């Protein structure tokens, strides 16, 4: 399975989602201050230095390949384009999952941080961005947990014990590749740390 996290341009939230999925960042708590800032900055710079396109982040513990895409087209265009070319070349829709991270971002951190940085106030930019992530980190962690759960469902097929979950949470019942989930705050992931899985 290929998981493609995408968001508008190289959003830090995109890097955080991939970082959580790959275990670089904890899923059950927000990393603190300087460490978090340094990690996201380094990751961001490394990615920007590379050519535009799909960036391979790594392979998670389940053997799924994690990609990130900083797009400047709308999410629906990305969905249609990937599914369209996949159909042309006979790539089964079950082989990849597109996950839009943009709805899970905190607006103040996203826009405020970008504006301040563009104006040259780098420290203030990171302060605002960190403040934004305090609010959105758990949502992004929850998204990653949902994605893992969804992949597990896809791999397991129609297990009976998963059916109540499908009924309770329409997000899981969507078409694979239709990554528009519910960005509402959910409970924080369990104590399983980086490998936390949704409660199935």
């Amino acid at each position, binding site marked *: 399975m290929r998981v493609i996290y995408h968001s508008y341009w190289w959003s830090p939230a995109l890097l955080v989602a991939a970082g959580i999925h790959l275990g670089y960042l904890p899923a059950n708590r927000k990393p603190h201050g300087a460490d978090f800032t340094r990690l996201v900055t380094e990751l961001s710079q490394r990615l920007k230095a590379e050519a535009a*396109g*799909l960036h391979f982040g790594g392979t998670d513990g389940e053997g799924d390949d994690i990609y990130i895409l900083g797009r400047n087209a709308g999410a629906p265009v990305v969905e249609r384009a990937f599914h369209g*070319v996949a159909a042309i*070349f006979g*790539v089964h829709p079950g082989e990849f999952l597109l996950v839009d991270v943009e709805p899970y971002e905190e607006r103040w951190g996203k826009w405020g941080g970008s504006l301040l940085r563009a104006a040259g106030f780098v420290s203030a930019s990171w302060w605002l961005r960190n403040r934004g992530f305090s609010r959105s980190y758990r949502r992004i962690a929850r998204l990653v947990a949902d994605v893992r759960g969804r992949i597990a469902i896809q791999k397991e097929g129609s297990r009976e014990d998963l059916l109540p979950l499908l009924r309770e949470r329409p997000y899981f019942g969507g078409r694979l590749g239709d990554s528009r989930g519910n960005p509402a705050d959910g409970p924080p992931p369990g104590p399983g740390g980086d490998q936390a899985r949704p409660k199935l």
Partner: protein
Amino acid sequence: MGRRPDPEEIRRVPNFDKLKNREIGTPIYVGPDEDGNRVYIIGLATGKKIMAAALRDFLLSCGVREGDVYFADALPGANVLTRIGGFLSRQAGLVRIGRPLCAIGIWQKYPQFVELVRRVKVDLGSRPSVPTGPGEVH
């Protein structure tokens, strides 16, 4: 490719200025060329360079061979008239004004489109392996 069609003829091309916003991103099959390559069109809005690179990377990661896919950017051939016509027709809904403008703009730049197609065909012809996969995305 040997002659220049008039704007009215351009307007009669299937799908010309008829795609809706919700179809942007969806590849549309146009037909095979004389070498058997399958030709598609795809609108990628503002992110065409990034998206084309991402789609190519994605296909390669799925095992599609490098020689089986070719992306050609057709937008540099569009002039201001085409862009204004396209905006009026697709965004503002003024089809009667926008579509003819769009066709005239294409007509003005027609030699550039011919050149683009020539270049693509030369590129395809110079490739080491003849494409045998399911499609060429142009």
